[in-house]
């Protein structure tokens, strides 16, 4: 999916290689969500989704990077984040998006929960090729 980055906006990149980077990614996304003037609930939802995906990138993807920034489509403004890793990929997307299923030691709600927290959710993955997850939340 091509993220419709707002004109004149260069998405900011944050590497995700250790635990502290998840916090940094979250702070960066918080900045963008505030800039976009999302409501407090939507801000919290988007930040939480980003937090889940950043941690997935770190724990399951073996690290990667996040790009985030403002987006614009048909006059609507929103905020987007793209998480990219070159880890093992997800062999069974259906299974991975099932509530409660985890290949690690988590609650199994990160990926499926993140999908429910945002307006648009795109998962591009292939076993052995890595994973890219893009999320968008539109301002109301």
């Amino acid at each position, binding site marked *: 999916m091509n993220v419709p980055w707002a004109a004149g906006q260069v998405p900011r990149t944050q590497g995700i290689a250790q635990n502290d980077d998840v*916090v940094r990614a979250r702070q960066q996304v918080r900045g963008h969500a505030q800039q976009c003037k999302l409501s407090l*609930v939507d801000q919290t*939802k988007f930040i939480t989704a980003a937090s889940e995906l950043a941690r997935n990138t770190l724990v399951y993807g073996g690290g990667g990077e996040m790009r985030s920034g403002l987006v614009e489509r048909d006059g609507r403004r929103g905020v987007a984040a793209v998480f990219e890793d070159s880890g093992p990929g997800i062999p069974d997307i259906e299974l991975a998006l099932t509530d409660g299923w985890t290949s690690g030691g*988590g609650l199994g*709600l*990160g990926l499926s*929960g993140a999908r429910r*927290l945002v307006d648009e959710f795109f998962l591009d993955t292939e076993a052995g090729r890595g994973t890219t997850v893009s999320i968008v939340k539109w301002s109301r």
Partner: protein
Amino acid sequence: MAKQDSKSDLAGLLSADRERVVDQWIDSVVGSLKGRISKAEVDRELRELYAALVEALVAGGEDARGDHLSETRALLTELSRNRARQGFTPSETAISVLALKRAFEPALRDGSAEDTDRYLRLSRILDDLALFTIETYTRTREEIISSQATQLMELSTPVVKLWDGVIAVPLVGTLDSARTQVVMEKLLQALVDTGSEQAIIDITGVPAVDTQVAQHLLKTIVAARLMGAECTVSGIRPQIAQTIVALGIEFGDIVTKATLADALQLALKKSGIDLVAHQGGGR
């Protein structure tokens, strides 16, 4: 090392036009620091450094990591530490050494081949010393960061006693595995120490509750239960509540409250304490 003849002697190069070189050096360093350190202080620092450097070179030391330059390194260590603590950038710190090279350039223009050779040798020493400065600077910064992290870890996890038999942990900031471990240990220890049966975990100060935070919370609560205490989670703000629902996290039979006051009231009730409002209250 044997004393060399004056032409190839580095100490000679430094002593030849000493006042002009040192003045120019001090001026360019003061300029680069943009007045954030007084000229008098820079003056003192750099003159001391220069003297130590000359002394080391007279003694024949040309290895930046060698014994002869240990005095110089000690002064540089102090300088870099101070700069790091005062919030200067690595460049602003290293320039204190590197600017000295620039001070020699005028002399080089109409100098002989020997002068150039001496300049290059001095330049190599100064480069090494500049690298040393940056290393020290970075080390100091890392020390500061790690001590702050430790302080923060302890600061942000107090266990407070609200009533006889009721303790509370107000959580502030990000909950990662390391911090949860500290919180859990402190909470469980406080349960034993105070003989409390009610524990309140207040998450008003936690900016976002994701699945990892929830999982850490659940583990802490289960551990407290195993010790016979009842746990209430308070401080669930509207946006957090909606996020938790969307994420699909189940808190099961764990009691949650919107505010710490509600949680305290519930804990008191469970401990068999009734709060009675007196008539004509407000005194």
